[in-house]
């Protein structure tokens, strides 16, 4: 069953086309990775799918609701962890989580229960009463993703979730994301190809706003006659191996 159906989706800023006629379907429970060099259109695509910007043309339907016609209904079912860490700096870890839960309509009792679950799942117990601004970069990322998950979203957008993290923190986040596979439909953007190989079910490679290719690692390497995802990515992004 398709959770996301994207049809001829485009976004233009004046004369510049950031996303050009995108067509794609993503299945329920799938972890779909969007790859591309800087400016390829990944973040713009995620912003359109999460109703943060309006498409210039085309449409995307998430769980039966159109981002153009029913953005409010879409917003009830999704959540996002933006590229930059998005936490309330002067609130504690617990306060950040409870605030997000409340905004998504959870009552106080449920919000507290979900907060405890997230604190445990993301290893935040030792810093539960610390202000977000006092946390390390890795811990802030974990909190940011926990805030995205506390609303029990059916679709989760992770925009470069491990950017700037050290190897250990990245591996810990991978484990958290892997635990969600099959339960939540995840759209992930990243520049780390080993992350894509470790986590994703399918990959979409964007170049100049267009979707250049879609497939598994094996399908993409076969399509390009290469041995590694990195080589396939370079070929499909318009570079030379």
């Amino acid at each position, binding site marked *: 069953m398709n959770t996301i159906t994207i049809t001829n989706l485009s976004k233009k800023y004046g004369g510049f086309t950031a996303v050009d006629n995108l067509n794609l379907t993503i299945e329920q429970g799938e972890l779909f990775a969007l790859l591309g060099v800087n400016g390829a259109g990944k973040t713009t695509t995620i*912003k359109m799918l*999460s*109703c*943060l*910007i*309006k498409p210039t043309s085309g449409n995307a339907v998430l769980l039966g609701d159109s981002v153009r016609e029913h953005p*409010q209904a879409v*917003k*009830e079912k*999704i*959540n*996002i*962890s*933006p*590229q*930059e*860490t*998005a*936490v*309330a*700096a*002067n*609130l504690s870890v617990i*306060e950040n989580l409870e*605030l*997000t839960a*409340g*905004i*998504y*309509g959870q009552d106080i009792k449920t919000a507290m229960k979900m907060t405890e679950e997230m604190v445990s799942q993301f290893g935040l117990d030792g810093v539960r009463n610390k*202000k977000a601004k006092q946390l390390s970069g890795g811990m802030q990322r974990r909190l*940011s993703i926990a*805030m*995205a998950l506390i*609303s029990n979203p059916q679709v989760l*957008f992770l925009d470069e979730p491990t950017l700037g993290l050290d190897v250990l923190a990245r591996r810990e986040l991978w484990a958290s994301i892997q635990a969600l596979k099959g339960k939540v439909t995840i759209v992930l953007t990243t520049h780390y190809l080993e992350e894509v190989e470790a986590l994703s079910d399918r990959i979409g490679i964007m170049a100049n706003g267009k979707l250049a290719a879609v497939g598994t690692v094996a399908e993409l390497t076969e399509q390009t006659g290469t041995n590694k995802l990195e080589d396939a990515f370079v070929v499909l992004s318009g570079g030379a191996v």
Partner: protein
Amino acid sequence: MRIILFAKRNIKEILRDPINLFFGLGFPLILLVLLSVINASIPPEANNPMFSIENLAPGLAMFGTAFMALFTGMLVSKDRTSSFLMRLFASPMTSFDFILGYTLPMLVMSLAQAAITLLASCIAGLELSGNLLLAILVTMLTSLLFVGFGLLFGSLLNDKAVGGICGALLTNVAGWLSGVFIPIDLIGGAFKKAAEILPFYHSVQAIKATLDGNFVEILPHLIIVLGYTIVIFILAIIVFHRRMSGDKA
């Protein structure tokens, strides 16, 4: 529910910053003490009531609320640049939730600030009467103008620019053109005309008329202030809504 949750978050963000506490609650008191000392050193034969407590109290009550523009602007701007607002824009919160969620904490702050400033003025000689309660409410109402400025500039500019415009420029314009620090009637001319066209002088006069129990004079001044407030809020809502829709403001 969402409005209350967001408003609670915003008030925590502001009150947990000691600089905000100083400018929000302490600075008007420091000015009150300093200007009262100056007033005490003016000889009675000079017949200059400029810094008498009856003039000083409403002026400082208004001037203190000018910092609400700085608090609101910095909060909105920091939320935007830290991506926190992007997270909330992707949530089911509506633009109505955001505007009220940012405005309500500032009204609470203005209420507390006006109460502290005017009660401290009573220690300095202002008559303690029932009009004081009404003056606190009028001050809260006039503070909406500055909250609107904060919402507008916070939606348009980064936090450094907000600091410059709302923290330095706006507080100075509000201070000088309201008659708190200089005698507008004595200067007269274009300066007086500018002060009468802009809303700050009328905010002070509305608060003063309330404290004096001169109720017929409140509304004419208040209407001018609220007129400006409505225009600024409409502009702020348009810009904020465009930001929320991902359009460039």
